[in-house]
């Protein structure tokens, strides 16, 4: 009986390992391919069948950073847009989520629904309206224009996420703070915010990542004065040729900030996403 169970277990583990490796490979293969390509010369890239062994060169990275097609200014544009979007999203979503989670607001349920409903509209349907709106204000191709557009996506998500984190905090904790003569604002700062650090980390990472990786709106609503790094990939595509090696190098460089933020916040993301499931487990 026991051996059968044990065999079953081993078999199950084998299947799980096999499946997850397979899925991981599907995910990671393009990345590995890009890394290889980024170290090849442009001629080598077009060799068919592809060479597994080749002499790696750093020319593509040099070109993507220092050359005439440098993506440095685009990186800085993306960094400005993504970080300001993230900071503003946090500053607005924390008090908004607190009021939705705790205060008896008039029409609270409707507001809550609206916040989620905005997430249901496909972005494609919003491109043209946003183009017209930003155009009317003269905000096309500006930092603030892009930041506001990105915030319309990040804010609802952030609020929704923070509300669920805040609702997990026992009300008595806040009541204790009120009796300790803390005002609402101080209660939020000293009692609530430190306890939703996980949620703040998750919000930060998701907001930064989404606005950094965004392409559709970037390409439609900006592109001349303000050029997010996703658009910069077009630097390497022209009518005559596509510079695949340099494109890959640029794409890999553009990934670095997101990877760094992801690694820093990795623990928090896992903690944050699972904390909601155990509802206040570990806290008393």
């Amino acid at each position, binding site marked *: 009986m026991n051996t059968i169970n044990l065999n079953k277990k081993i078999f199950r583990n084998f299947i799980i390992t096999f499946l997850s490796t397979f899925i991981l490979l599907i995910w990671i293969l393009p990345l590995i391919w890009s890394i290889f390509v980024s170290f090849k010369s442009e001629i080598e890239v077009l060799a068919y069948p592809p060479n597994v062994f080749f002499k790696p060169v750093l020319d593509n990275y040099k070109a993507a950073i220092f050359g005439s097609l440098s993506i440095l200014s685009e990186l800085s544009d993306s960094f400005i847009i993504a970080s300001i979007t993230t900071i503003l999203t946090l500053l607005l979503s924390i008090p908004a989520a607190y009021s939705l989670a705790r205060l008896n607001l008039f029409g609270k349920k409707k507001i809550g629904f609206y916040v989620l409903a905005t997430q249901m509209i496909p972005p494609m349907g919003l491109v043209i309206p946003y183009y017209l709106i930003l155009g009317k204000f003269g905000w096309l191709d500006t930092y603030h224009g892009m930041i506001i557009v990105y915030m319309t996506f990040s804010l609802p998500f952030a609020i929704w996420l923070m509300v669920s984190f805040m609702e997990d905090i*026992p009300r*008595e*904790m806040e*009541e*204790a*703070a*009120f*009796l*300790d*003569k*803390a*005002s609402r604002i*101080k209660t939020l700062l*000293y*009692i609530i915010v*430190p*306890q939703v650090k996980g949620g703040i980390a998750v919000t930060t990472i998701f907001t930064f990542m989404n606005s950094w990786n965004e392409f559709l709106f970037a390409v439609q609503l900006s592109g001349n004065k303000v050029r997010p790094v996703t658009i910069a990939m077009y630097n390497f595509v022209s009518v005559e040729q596509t510079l695949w090696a340099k494109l890959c190098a640029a794409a890999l460089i553009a990934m670095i900030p997101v990877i760094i933020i992801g690694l820093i916040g990795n623990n928090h993301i896992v903690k944050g996403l699972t904390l909601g499931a155990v509802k206040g487990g*570990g*806290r*008393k």
Partner: protein
Amino acid sequence: MDKGLKIEIKNITKKYGKVTILEDVNLTIEPNEFFAFLGPSGSGKTTTLRILAGLEEINNGQIFFNSKDITQSSPGSRDVAMVFQSYALYPHMSVFENISFPLKMDGVKKNQINEFVKQASQRVKIEHLLNRKPGQLSGGQQQRVALARAIVRKPKLFLLDEPLSNLDAKLRLETRVELKNLHKSLNVTTVYVTHDQEEAMTLANRIGVFLKGKLMQVGTPKEIFDNPASLDVAGFIGNPPMNLLDAEIVDGKLVVEGKLIKNYSTIFKNKKDLVVGIRPNDISLGEDGIEAKVYLIEQLGDSSIINLHINKKIVKHKTGENLTLEEGEDVKVSLNPDKIYLFDKITGLKI
């Protein structure tokens, strides 16, 4: 030393939607008194405490602290400290930060904060735990931190919401004594919510009995025990509570289950719908009396509770004697006529 806080509660009513939680509660708590709200869960005692703290809004009524109307005041402005049943410690702060939080919010200077925290933590014997986080403490230690956080600010009023209910039995008895001492040394008006009669009786100067959202009776522990004002209170106070048996007066004689208990000369010569209350200790088993059957015997060590069936009703008899009874045995029960309480079954009031 200044005079303590006197609390007056006038005509308080609290509703959640259509459900009435508290109905027309009136109460005066004297300065420096240790007052207990006693009642089963859902009786409105915690709600009343939270109303005193300012954490619940009321539909009707007023609250006065030393004759000042504070009905609409915010919790922070009332200068009260509360120990929650769950303790509500701030999990991300150390014990020191937890205790100092009310001082910090009150704008107390840093060197004074250290001094006050030291005093408060010594008082509840947790000075060695100041660097720990609440999650690293046992239930009893957490409870002491909550107490320290409450006393550190030297408030005018202490509110304790079932502070001992999460402790194990031994610790509960120890902490009970310490609470009593704490109240003696601090001498601050204290309101204590509990469902445990023993706690209320041993700790409080006076008790308010809450039942079904009403304040049924207020008095000293002895008054409440010796002189329950109504059937509800009689059926709740005492461990086990009073036995309640249907009775009537026939020709000036009190009759229970067909047996004459005693002559009864009051305004009534004949009256039906009465209830006789008798404490489990005031029943005796003997040759003569009401017929009963032994149903179950509970051994308590120094005494035992004998559950008797009288006309399908369970009557408890508590005795220290070592009786050789068997379950299912027929016995005769007599009630001590000097120790009976008589209630009107319809109004529920004592006669």
